[in-house]
């Protein structure tokens, strides 16, 4: 489903590299965790998938589509196939939880009926029915991240890309977020997640890709957190 073909990302000085000759693929319905030290290239890798960053060499494919050949005007359409979750939540501060989720559907051109039906469902899935009309600054970190996940899944994307989704959360909120991601994966959505959290990896027991200095150094089917 996602295929990285010998991808490198060099910085302007020409010597330091964020990614070096990265090749791997992700099958549909997989749950892949990417681990590594800070600066190992995890976030750069995810940015390649959502076309926020361009590789210096190599290609990234989404199904049969070369991601970096998509014309700029078509990018919004491509991004609607991917749900994104970030460490800092990236919620729109002037919109309520409900409106944040509804915005992703409005941008997608969905009808009002669909929005009225699907947003409460998404909120229920992340167990936030009672916070629908709260603004982000009225929510805890764990609640914000659950709103962000609800927004990511509401358009039924093929894949969820999560960059350190538990990075800012306490252990209980972390547990909840991982459970929700696992539930989404069980419902048939591919998940790619980066993390620092050993407990999360060990508990998941799914595929783990380990990165170091821009290279993939391990790729284990039911991996453990080894660094």
């Amino acid at each position: 489903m996602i295929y990285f073909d010998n991808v490198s990302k060099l910085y302007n000085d020409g010597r330091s590299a964020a990614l070096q000759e990265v090749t791997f693929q992700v099958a549909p319905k997989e749950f892949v965790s990417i681990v590594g030290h800070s600066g190992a290239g995890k976030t750069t890798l995810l940015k390649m998938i959502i076309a926020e960053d361009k590789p210096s060499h190599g290609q990234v494919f989404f199904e049969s589509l070369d991601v970096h050949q998509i014309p700029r005007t078509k990018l919004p359409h491509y991004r609607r196939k991917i749900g994104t979750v970030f460490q800092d939540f990236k919620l729109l501060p002037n919109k309520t939880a409900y409106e944040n989720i509804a915005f992703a559907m409005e941008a997608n051109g969905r009808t009002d009926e669909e929005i009225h039906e699907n947003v409460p469902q998404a909120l229920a899935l992340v167990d936030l029915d009672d916070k629908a009309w709260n603004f982000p600054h009225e929510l805890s970190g764990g609640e914000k991240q659950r709103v962000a996940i609800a927004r990511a899944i509401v358009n039924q994307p093929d894949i969820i890309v999560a960059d350190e989704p538990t990075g800012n959360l306490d252990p209980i909120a972390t547990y909840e977020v991982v459970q929700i991601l696992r539930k989404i994966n069980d419902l048939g959505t591919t998940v790619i997640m980066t993390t620092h959290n050993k407990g999360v990896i060990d508990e998941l027991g799914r595929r783990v890709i380990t990165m170091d200095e821009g290279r993939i150094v391990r790729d284990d089917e039911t991996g453990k957190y080894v660094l």
Partner: protein
Amino acid sequence: MLTGIKRIVRAGFVGFWRNAYVSLASVFVITVALFVIGSTMFIDQLLTTSLKTLQQKVDINVYFVPSASQDDIDSIRNAVSALPDVATVTYTSREEALEKYRQRNQDDEIAMQALAELDDNPLGANIAISAKETSQYESIARFLEEKRELALQQSPVIDEINYARNKESIDTLTKIIGAVEQASLVTMLVLIVAAVLITFNTIRLAIYTAREEISIMRLVGASNMFIRGPFMLQGIMYGLVAGVFSLLIFYPIMVWLGPLTESFFEFNLFTYFVSNFSYIFGVLIGIGVVLGLVSSILAVARYLRV
């Protein structure tokens, strides 16, 4: 498409309301800009109108000799009227001139007695000529001088042309008009450019605070138009509200200035404001909307680049 527009409009209104402070700041800055632009409009109008009144007071008088035949007078009068630079020619016949003289000197017994001693009217007819532009008097005067020289070879028709006497004041006036018009043009341009730049910058700052939101919207897959739309609408709303504000500010100022300008410039600014209200309304609101819209588009464009 229709739901898209509906959503953009709703997002625009909600954004305007929820960012009330930022909106208010933008509205105030555009109001100031419109006030500057409106003021220059009014000052320009005041200058042009008062200069026109001044120009109308300047004229050339041609005095004919009393013995001049009516045919000769008429031929000169028609020739002058036919000149393209001439705006109006006012003819005063011998009888009318005498009547005016009598009225002017009603209380002067010696003058009246002297007049009674004469058995004929001593005054000649005259014409007053006003030109379309003050700079054209020179050529009209030259034309009249030629006529006078020509007539001298037979019998004199023109007694006196008072251009030489008026020349100095006409020249000064022409220079002042030119200088005032240039100076006001330069001042207006500088003020308007400053006002426009300040507006651009304020809206850019307002949208700078929303740059994070714009990047989030892109990540969620919103199209550029869907992101830009609400900001454009907010820009238009800033302009509309600011246009109304500036008119509300102008109204009391005009009420106050009306009588003052009436006595000083012989031009009532308040009457002008009221009788041209729809034009002023359209210009101020139009400029406000364009200012708000264009600055919004430019500001958002920065953050829409990948």
